[in-house]
Each structure stands twice: as C-alpha cells, then as structure tokens.
C-alpha cells in the first residue's frame, strides 16, 4: 500500500486541473453525499458515467489507479459476500448456493457501489488538486468563522495528507525489518500489536520533530499571504452539473 498513487496529485494541465479549488471541493462534497443517498440502479449508473467522464477529462493514469483500487476491491468483495450470506431472504434460482440470499446480494452490491463512487471521487479530486490548494480552500472556508485559527487548521490538513504516504512507507519498512530479523511470528496478540506499534510510533515521533525543525528552519509562520481564487464560467458549469446530479439522486 505504500506506493499508492491514489491520494497523490498527478501533474497535468486539463480543465479539472485548472478548476477553482473551492468549487472542486464543493463538487466532491455533493457527489459523496449523492453516493450515500443513491438507491436505484440508474443513480449508480449516472454517478459512474459522470466519474468516468471526469477521469477521461483529467487524463489520470488509468492503469495505475486500477492497480491501487485492488485494495478497495478486496474490501468490496468481502462486504458483498458477508452481506450476501448474512441478510435473510429468498434464494437466487440460477445460483443455488446454500445460505445465499437475493436481498443480501443486492444490499452488498449497493454498498459496494457507494464505496466505489466515494473512492473514485476522491481519486479524481486528489489527483487533480495539489495539497497546497486543499489547505488554501480550507483556510478560505474557515476565515470568516471567529475564534478559529484558519491558517493552523489548513496546515494540519495539508500535513495530514502529506503524512499518510510517509506513515504507510514507514510501517512497511518496519515490518520488513522485523521480518528480516525473524520476529514477525508472535502468537500473543498483545505482544503482536505492541511490537508492531511501538517502533512505528517511536520512529514517527522522531520524524515529526524533524518536520517541526524543518518548518522552523524555513521560517514557517501562520501569518502569511492569503490565496487568491479565480473561478471561470466553465468551473461553474461543472459545479452545476454535479449539483444537478446530487439533486436528481436525492429527489428521485
């Protein structure tokens, strides 16, 4: 999972890359809400159609994204099969497996569709938006709210995203190091968790202090120039498209 390209910005110069960050995040919010309200088949087809169009528009690398989706595919398969076998209902005549119910399969597929939409929306948005923009948009949203340190929260969000791949890489490295020393086989679950988390946290705490020092050395300050956003007609069109999909899914 360490090489996941999925939450990472991929450089490009397309309509979606140039889109106003505020509207892009609003679209993400709307689409993920729409995903949780979707019930009928045509809702899912609509959302998937829109997302495939967005993926083509953004010219993101298909193969790399699909490779990363394997992880989510595993979760989706697990969820479908658990739902299929635990929700009581009528058996499927063409697929006579013991315990399998039609209602269960439908519920599982619905859940899987929702998950896939959310993951794809996230892939499109994070693939076309640099981390800086994320932070700036969040600062822009929080700025008018009193007593909220907008700049600090924006820094926190940016750092969180930056840290996720670092953490995954560190964890994989540590597990490999333990395996190389032959200490991965612990039966006792307490020791197992402890020996996985202790060195990992220790490393990460040290690393975090280094990040703090690096930020100080580069003169980090919460008092800084504010970002200026510009939105074009095309951005508003994309936003309206997402809004209409959201309203359609919620109202029908």
């Amino acid at each position: 999972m360490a090489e996941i390209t999925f939450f990472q910005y991929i450089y490009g110069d397309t309509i979606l890359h140039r889109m106003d960050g505020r509207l892009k995040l609003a679209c993400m919010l709307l689409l993920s809400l729409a995903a949780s309200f979707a019930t009928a088949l045509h809702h899912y087809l609509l959302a998937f159609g829109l997302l495939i169009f967005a993926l083509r528009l953004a010219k993101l690398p298909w193969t790399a994204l699909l490779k990363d989706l394997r992880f989510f595919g595993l979760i989706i398969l697990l969820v479908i099969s658990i739902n299929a076998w635990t929700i009581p209902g009528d058996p499927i005549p063409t697929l006579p497996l013991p315990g399998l119910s039609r209602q269960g399969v439908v519920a599982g597929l619905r859940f899987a569709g929702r998950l896939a939409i959310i993951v794809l929306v996230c892939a499109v948005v994070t693939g076309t938006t640099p981390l800086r923009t994320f932070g700036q948009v969040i600062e822009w949203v929080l700025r008018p709210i009193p007593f909220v340190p907008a700049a600090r929260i924006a820094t926190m969000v940016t750092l969180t995203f930056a840290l996720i791949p670092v953490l995954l890489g560190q964890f994989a490295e540590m597990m490999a190091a333990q395996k190389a020393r032959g200490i991965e086989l612990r039966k006792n679950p307490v020791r197992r968790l402890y020996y996985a988390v202790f060195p990992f946290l220790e490393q990460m705490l040290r690393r975090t202090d280094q990040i703090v020092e690096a930020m100080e050395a580069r003169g980090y300050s919460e008092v800084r120039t504010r970002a200026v956003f510009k939105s074009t007609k095309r951005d508003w069109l994309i936003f309206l498209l997402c809004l209409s999909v959201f309203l359609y899914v919620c109202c029908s």
Partner: protein
Amino acid sequence: MEPNEFFKPTTAPREDEARTNLRMTVYVALFTALIIIGGYISIPLPIGPVPIVLADFFTMVTGVFLGYRWGLTSVALYLCLGILGLPVFAGGKAGLAVLFGPTGGFLFGYLFLVAVVGFIVHKGKPSLFKTAMALVAGNLLLYGVGVTWLKTVLKIGWPAAVAAGLIPFIPGIIIKIVVASALARTLLPRFQQGPVPPFRQ
C-alpha cells in the same frame, strides 16, 4: 509612527508560544493520519454492521499523547475530513450519511474517548494505573454512546444492540487497552520531554 511598526505582523504570538503551537500542529496532523490509517486496518464482522478497527486504538493513543485539547482537535479534524467526502472512515467510507448512520455513534464517541483519556492522563502525576483507568473509562463512554446510537438508529432492542456493538469487541478492547497503557509508559515520558532545544546564535 516608528518605521518598524508598519511591518510588524499584528497577530504574531510570542516565539515560545509559536514554537509549541507549531509542534502540536504537526503532532495533531500525525495523529489524525494515524487514525485514518487505523480505519483502513479494519475487519468486517459477519454478525453486525460494526467492524473491528484500529482507529479506536489510535484514538486512545492520541488522547494519551496529546491531552484533551489537542486530542479533540485531532479527532474533530478526522471527522471533518470524512464529512468533506474523503474516504477516511472504517473501510473507506465517507460523508455525512455515515456519521448519522448506524455506526455514527462510535465516530462521535471518539470525541468523548479522546477527551476523557486526554483529561485524566494529563492531570496530576502520571501512573500506569491511572492511564489504564482512563482508557477503561474512555472506552465505557465510547461504547455507551455507540451502542445507544446503534439501538436508536436500527430500532432494535438492548440485547441485539449489545450483541452487535459490544460483545464481539471485548477481547479486542482489552488487548488495545493493555497495549496503549504500555505505550504510554514507555513513550510518553520521551514525548513530554519536548524536542531538542532550538539552535540559537
């Protein structure tokens, strides 16, 4: 008007304060990222909608290390990222619907967990017993809120809610509490010592 007055930033805090704030800012980001990763290491259970996750373990660790103020910030940030539509909740879920769905009580319960653990651990002298008790109290609150929520949303009776939302996790909770207490004992003193002092000319 003095010439320098014009260039002086109006809201810049004192240097020490700014330093502590920056350090805690980065730590909040670190622990939020840990909670997010913990949500991905989740195992769905065949008997109910609540999966076993490591997110609550990292929430406990957040409370132990950051205290209640910064810990609450960290968990609130996690919830906000989920609301925004990023797949950060257990198993890649996101959105307001999850927060108000059957398992939403556990997500809100994280706020209580981190607040209680952070408050008790950072009050008075540190001891292993106190940390363990703080974790037990926090988990009682977490599962109290979570199970009540599950019961209300799914409209099921208490026995069914407890069977789906509490009983399968008891062994996991005990393991997590033991490990979190052990981590607090070994790592917390080092963490509280603070970073290496800054280089001054």
